[in-house]
């Protein structure tokens, strides 16, 4: 590694030659405050919070974009630096709707934190007081530009991480606002509902459409049977909302807290992750044997589905017709399980706790209801909303005992739990497909080539005589690359897993928001995924088709995988939306 010698606050350091001052300072154990900078995607020098003094430079410089060079002397903490940062924060605050008391991001807001740390006076400057319209046109996201600080992190997430680019900075000067082209509502664009813009936002300008009140109302209604199931990745992340380090498995406490909220049933969505796998693996084998449409592409990520429908409508026939795990759960709960428990599906309110804003959109899709007027899932709440409900009910999460999911749907396999990480669905499907084709147990269950956090992973496996080429992509910008290569014939694949969010559900748009100071320095995807792979390795049952509840449901209700009943209840169809 080439290094250069620099002095930071009077001490000498050898730092990597092409680093910025921000990176060099971190190397020296100094965290320079930032608001607009996001590693790899947003280095635009806009907020000027990261100002530092450099000997010999004219004026203060922005550390996030300023490169170091040999002999540079940097001062990160002088009175001049501190005064300038404070003034800049005060200028941001002058145009900001300062409603910290009711703000959804209060106590988890980067602006609030810095304003407080710097001792900024929120009313030193009086700024614009025009009110911006709130865009709540979609079912999954709210944009309140009155709180927007124009850092453009959401724009970078949408454009660079996801390759979508439906939002941008419009107009100029005081009129600058972040919105869609021609000031359209988000619902009128080809936004894929992934929520990556939300988790990139430092403040309360972007948030999920909050559905917690609907859930609370349902629970309070004695005529309703209200059940909830938790997606695989929620147990790996919800602890972060209660002060746990990223990468802490809190399944037992999460279940205990959910039970104390008053649900009539608290279940594990890993069960329908398993069911999805059995359906999907058999669908894949069927397509291979009967000359069906290949490559087959997974369908459990609704952000990816919406992306495919808008941007690659020619691939909608390649999509597996399997519903996503949340929709399979709702559908089975209101049919098979309702009958078993003697419940009228009309009295059931089925809630899913999910890492994802796109699943809020999914529950509203046609083709996802059990019968007319009875949706499969009634309400989808994100990890953040579940955490909010728990705190709101006065439940001290950290003091919860470890409890188990309710019977009769308490079992999920190790294959089900890894659904939450990129490559997990593929690995789970391969375990089942391989054993179905080979008709004997696999010796090694780990498919290491599809694990890990790379953006696109490829592997070839021999399942008996069958050679299967697989590819795994996460984040729609990567999906685009992969699909273009498939389209041009450059890449030959049989089976593709795509997750809408980079890294898969563990990094979904409904997950706990971590500030840039964490996002820039820690690999959240890796830490959170590890929880899932560890859980898998400890499971006794590690293959979806061996989940006893899955077996029971086939025996008593569905018959075989991909049977007529299974198609009626567990499969769906897509639309070609275009741009």
């Amino acid at each position, binding site marked *: 590694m080439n290094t250069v010698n620099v002095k930071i606050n009077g001490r000498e350091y050898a730092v990597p030659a092409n680093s910025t001052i921000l990176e060099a300072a971190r190397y020296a154990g100094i965290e320079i405050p930032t608001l607009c900078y996001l590693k790899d995607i947003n280095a635009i020098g806009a907020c000027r919070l990261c100002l530092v003094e450099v000997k010999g430079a004219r004026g203060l410089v922005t550390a996030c974009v300023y490169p170091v060079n040999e002999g540079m002397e940097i001062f990160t903490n002088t009175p001049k630096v501190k005064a300038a940062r404070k003034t800049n924060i005060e200028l941001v605050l002058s145009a900001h709707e300062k409603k910290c008391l009711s703000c959804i991001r209060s106590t988890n807001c980067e602006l609030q934190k810095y304003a407080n740390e710097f001792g900024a006076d929120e009313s030193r400057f009086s700024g614009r007081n025009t009110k911006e319209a709130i865009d709540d046109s979609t079912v999954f996201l709210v944009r309140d530009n009155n709180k927007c600080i124009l850092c453009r992190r959401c724009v970078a997430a949408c454009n660079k991480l996801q390759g*979508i680019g439906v939002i*941008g900075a*419009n*107009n*100029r000067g005081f*009129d600058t*606002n972040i919105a869609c*082209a*021609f000031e359209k509502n988000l619902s009128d664009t080809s936004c894929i509902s992934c929520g990556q813009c939300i988790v990139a936002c430092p403040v309360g300008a972007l948030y999920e459409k909050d559905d917690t009140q609907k859930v609370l109302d349902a629970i309070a209604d004695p005529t309703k049977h209200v059940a909830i199931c938790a997606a695989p990745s929620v147990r790996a992340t919800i602890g972060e909302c209660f002060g746990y380090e990223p990468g802490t498995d809190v399944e037992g406490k999460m279940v205990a807290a959910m039970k104390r909220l008053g649900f009539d049933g608290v279940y594990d969505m890993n069960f329908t992750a398993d069911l999805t796998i059995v359906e999907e693996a058999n669908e894949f084998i069927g397509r291979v044997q009967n000359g069906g449409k290949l490559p087959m592409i997974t369908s459990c990520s609704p952000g990816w589905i919406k992306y495919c429908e808008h941007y690659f409508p020619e691939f909608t026939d390649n999509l597996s017709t399997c519903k996503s795990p949340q929709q399979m759960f709702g559908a089975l709960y209101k049919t098979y399980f309702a009958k078993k428990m003697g419940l009228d599906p009309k009295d059931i309110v089925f809630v899913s706790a999910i890492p994802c804003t796109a699943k809020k959109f999914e529950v509203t899709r046609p083709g996802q209801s059990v019968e007319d007027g009875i949706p499969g899932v009634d309400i989808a709440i994100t990890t953040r909303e579940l955490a909010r409900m728990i705190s709101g009910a006065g439940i001290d999460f950290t003091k919860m005992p470890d409890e188990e999911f309710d019977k009769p749907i308490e079992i999920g396999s190790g294959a089900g739990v890894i659904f939450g990480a990129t490559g997990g669905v593929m690995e789970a499907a391969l375990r089942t497909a391989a054993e179905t084709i080979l008709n004997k147990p696999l010796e090694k269950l780990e498919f290491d080539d599809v694990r890990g956090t790379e953006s696109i992973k490829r592997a070839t496996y021999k399942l008996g005589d069958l050679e299967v080429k697989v590819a795994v992509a996460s984040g729609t910008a990567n999906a685009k690359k992969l699909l273009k290569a498939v389209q041009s014939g450059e890449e030959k694949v049989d089976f593709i897993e795509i997750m809408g969010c980079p890294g898969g559900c563990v990094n979904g748009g409904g997950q706990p928001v971590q500030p840039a100071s964490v996002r820039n320095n820690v690999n959240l995807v890796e830490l959170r995924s590890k929880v899932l792979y560890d859980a898998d390795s400890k499971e006794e049952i590690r293959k979806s088709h061996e989940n006893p509840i899955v077996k029971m449901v086939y025996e008593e209700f569905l018959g075989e995988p991909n049977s007529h009943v299974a198609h009626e209840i567990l499969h769906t169809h897509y639309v070609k939306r275009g*741009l």
Partner: protein
Amino acid sequence: MKKQITTVAFKDTQEQRAKLDALIEKYKNEKGPMMPILQGAQDIYGYLPIEVQRYISIQTEVPLSEIYGIASFYSQFLLNPKGQYAVSVCLGTACYVKGSGLLMEKLTEVLGIKNGEITPDKKFSLDATRCIGACGLAPVITVNEDVYGRLEPKDIPDIIAKY
């Protein structure tokens, strides 16, 4: 002030589309292609409606939001078609407090079009503008290069009648 967006329906000819294609082809692979493409497109159509921007977006694979960001940032780009006579009402602070809002209302009545629109015969278009620096004459309207100041709503019909 944010740029006004037209509500007038867009029409183009084959000839215009061919010119636009040639323009995009010419600049597409150059560095920073969007300024010359948008300038050229405005020369072809007179303004930059969503249909034109979307077409450029698809052809260049630059997101529409980014193109609109540029088009709404630079004052040289027009989002509204201009009539033979472009009527602009200054809604800068000085004009506004002296009643330019009322002038706008009167113009809407006289011309039969709203802010950002064009008359069916394409003779007049109506726009609000930022401060044009004639605050001493507030409230001000302009018709192409002609400036009219210290107006009251009742002066409007006579001014329009001149064109």
